[in-house]
């Protein structure tokens, strides 16, 4: 298939498009059911294993809370911390996108990049 990307290359290309956004330190595609890393790109050597596991767990818990509130599943989860931001974008019940940024990141652009990436992966 000329021009077709392998599945892993497709994930890697999506990750690269997210980490191009200024201030993004690392991004990964996570298996939301098992909390395992599918693909990741990191500029600072963040260990993706624990990040994937905890991000999937956080998303699952917030999904439950939002369900109880009658709001439906989360579209984007944004956590602001002292030294940066964590942004999670559920693509499907099985796939989750995770981005870690510093405090200077362009969050609006990152949201758009995550939405675009989700569309490409879905």
């Amino acid at each position, binding site marked *: 298939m000329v021009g077709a990307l392998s599945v892993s290359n497709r994930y890697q290309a999506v990750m690269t498009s997210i980490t191009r956004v200024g201030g993004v330190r690392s991004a990964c595609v*996570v*298996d939301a*059911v*098992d*909390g*395992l*890393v599918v693909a990741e790109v990191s500029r600072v050597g963040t260990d993706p*294993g*624990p990040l*994937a*596991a*905890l991000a*999937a*767990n956080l998303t*699952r818990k917030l999904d439950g809370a939002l369900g109880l509130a009658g709001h439906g599943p989360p579209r984007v989860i944004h956590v602001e911390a002292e030294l940066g931001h964590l942004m999670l974008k559920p693509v499907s019940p099985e796939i989750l996108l995770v981005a870690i940024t510093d405090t200077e990141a362009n969050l609006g652009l990152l949201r758009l990049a995550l939405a675009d990436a989700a569309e490409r992966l879905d």
Partner: protein
Amino acid sequence: MRVLEPWVESPLTEFLAESSAQLVLLMTSSGQVIAQHGFTRSLDVMSVAALGAAIVASTGELARVMETESLGHVVHQGKGCGVLLAPFPMGQKTWIGLIVFGRDTTLGLVQVFFHTMAQQIREAAPGSGKAEQVLAEQFEDELNRSLRRLFGR
């Protein structure tokens, strides 16, 4: 929870709280039980320890035949629950964790907290962490003694 070595209790308690695992069995590579949580019958523990140690030994042998270093963790994912068999170095020896987890947690989360627990157990182990060697002829006595301590019988 029942533990043979008191210094295992705190890391195991923390692991159970963090990972939401349903059943946990810590054993040596020869199947000697160190700690258990969630099992109610000694027969279950004996069978599970023997089978778990055998599976890890088999995968280790498979790795040797394939000329790879190690096959690491063994995971069985069922519809309702998953089983993680995770060998980890303990001094000169290898211990094995067998964890059964449900759908209220994830494999990734269990692995992350298992890694932390293994590190804490290594740090908490007295001295070099070398467990007393169990000879083949002592094995049955040792196993029965362990089961009595684990189940209070």
